[in-house]
């Protein structure tokens, strides 16, 4: 029985409302970021971009951004390498402990991040490691690597193992197969996993909270200011962070599009 036109329209409106619901708070933050008043109240009387100017000039802000960026970049690179192999073990190879491995990978995702951060803090302490942004990288990896692995695994499920077998049949060694067949086929999965890894690390706060030591990431600073001692820079930096993320997503889409166009152009020439 097909959904009637009415049901379809009602569901469509529901979907639109859901998106509105998800983004409404960001709208408020956006308005707040361009309000001139130090203490915000709606409706906004005077608009100004002065907080953006202050944010750009502030050395605290650039330090925060640098720390967040360093963590996110390292997390992305390392988690991608791990996820590539992890996804093959998850989805592709039929090996004895595959089931256990699949379940082990899911555990960190199901784990409260605050507790994970604290556990790592104690672990680093017992090992005698002083927390810096580098320990935060480890903390992020514990949570983000499993997610990246799952994303690549979805791709790994969808390709035919006969392709690898055919290559091996033609005399390719294990490494050649990985490089020439498996890697290119998993590429779309790796691209989206990389995007996820970067953005999730960029926005993460419960893990960073306990594991960055004296360093501070942007979300951590925002949280501190929200809970105590409001700063008019909070909405401004929030919006800057959001806009940065969305620009990165746009950039990724553009890159994928360009790569595809380039490939088509080359095949057209052949």
């Amino acid at each position, binding site marked *: 029985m097909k959904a009637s036109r009415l049901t379809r329209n009602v569901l469509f409106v529901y979907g639109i409302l859901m998106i509105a619901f998800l983004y409404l708070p960001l709208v408020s933050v956006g308005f707040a970021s361009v309000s001139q008043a130090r203490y915000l109240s709606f409706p906004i009387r005077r608009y100004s971009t002065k907080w953006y100017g202050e944010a750009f000039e502030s050395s605290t802000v650039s330090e925060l951004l640098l720390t967040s960026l360093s963590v996110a970049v390292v997390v992305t690179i390392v988690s991608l390498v791990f996820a590539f192999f992890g996804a093959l073990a998850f989805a592709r*190879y039929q090996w*004895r402990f595959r089931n256990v491995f699949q379940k082990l990978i899911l*555990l960190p995702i199901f784990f409260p991040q*605050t*507790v994970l951060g604290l*556990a790592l803090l104690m672990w680093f302490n017992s090992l005698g490691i002083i927390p810096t942004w580098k320990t935060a990288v480890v903390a992020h990896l514990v949570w983000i690597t499993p997610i990246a692995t799952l994303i690549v695994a979805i791709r790994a*499920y969808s390709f035919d193992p006969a392709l690898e077998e055919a290559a091996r049949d033609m005399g390719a060694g294990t490494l050649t197969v990985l490089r020439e067949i498996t890697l290119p086929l998993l590429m779309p999965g790796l691209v989206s996993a990389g995007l996820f890894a970067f953005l999730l690390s960029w*926005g993460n706060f419960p893990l960073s909270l306990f594991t960055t030591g004296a360093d501070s990431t942007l979300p951590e600073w925002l949280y501190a200011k929200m809970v105590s001692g409001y700063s008019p820079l909070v909405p401004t930096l929030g919006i800057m962070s959001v806009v940065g993320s969305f620009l990165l997503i746009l950039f990724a889409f553009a890159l994928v599009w360009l790569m595809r166009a380039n490939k088509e152009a080359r095949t057209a020439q052949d």
Partner: protein
Amino acid sequence: MKSLDQKLGLFSALPVVALLGLAFLAPLVVVALFSIMPAKVFSLANTPDFSAYAVFVQQGYYKSLLWSLGMALASTAILLVVCWPLAYAMAKVFKSFTLVLTIAIVMSLFVSENIRLFGWVLTLMKGGLIEGHFRALTGIGFDSPLYGVPIIVFGLVYVYLPFMLFPLAQGIAMVPDDTRQAAYDLGASRWQVLWQIEIPLAAPGIVVGSLLSFVLAAGALAESKILGGQAVIAIADDIETAFTFGQNWPLGSALSMVLIVIIGTLALFGISKVDLDAIMGRKR
């Protein structure tokens, strides 16, 4: 080919296993050990006792735990009802709009949850986006719904919506259209199809989605701090306080262990019930 698969599987699992062993399982062992240390020590080289667990019972920390579990349960139940129609539509009704919704919802995940919760504060506070504009238009103000238990549950629903929605949509997509139509054809009403065919067949998605949102909500911290304004204390909040202001690692560890055991049992139970290969789209 079989033995090659064995070797390659083991080899490629190694990096992830090493990471999780060293930075996930080992820290959990440390937490477990710290939880049986005497109060306010910072090293494991002490005589173990179970005083921290006694404090958990005596000083009423179990109340925070019950609050957290209760609010997590409430938000999970609300999420199930709120997400079902949309998940159903995404899996069976919408065509290209499903992609739009997916992208929009995933993008919202990339925004740090505390920015989004802070946005709700700005939206709902007295003189916020809603009340401020309403008062400017009508001259009538009203009290802000912030700082209470309902608003914390609201925050949990808001933050963990994608974690319920996507597994649910995946579960519903696994219900063959034919079985649904066959049930109608055999005389079932809409409700009977929902209860006897759709829900049982979408069960893996329902289990994963509910588990994920319950577990994450039970360990959540930011919702009660930012939106709840300490109306009730979440267990994660107690844990944080024990570690930071309290400087009492054994107490924090004991509280963590209680949460970990509850969540771990649920997660392991749920994960063991589900065929991951089928959910993630095995094509063999």
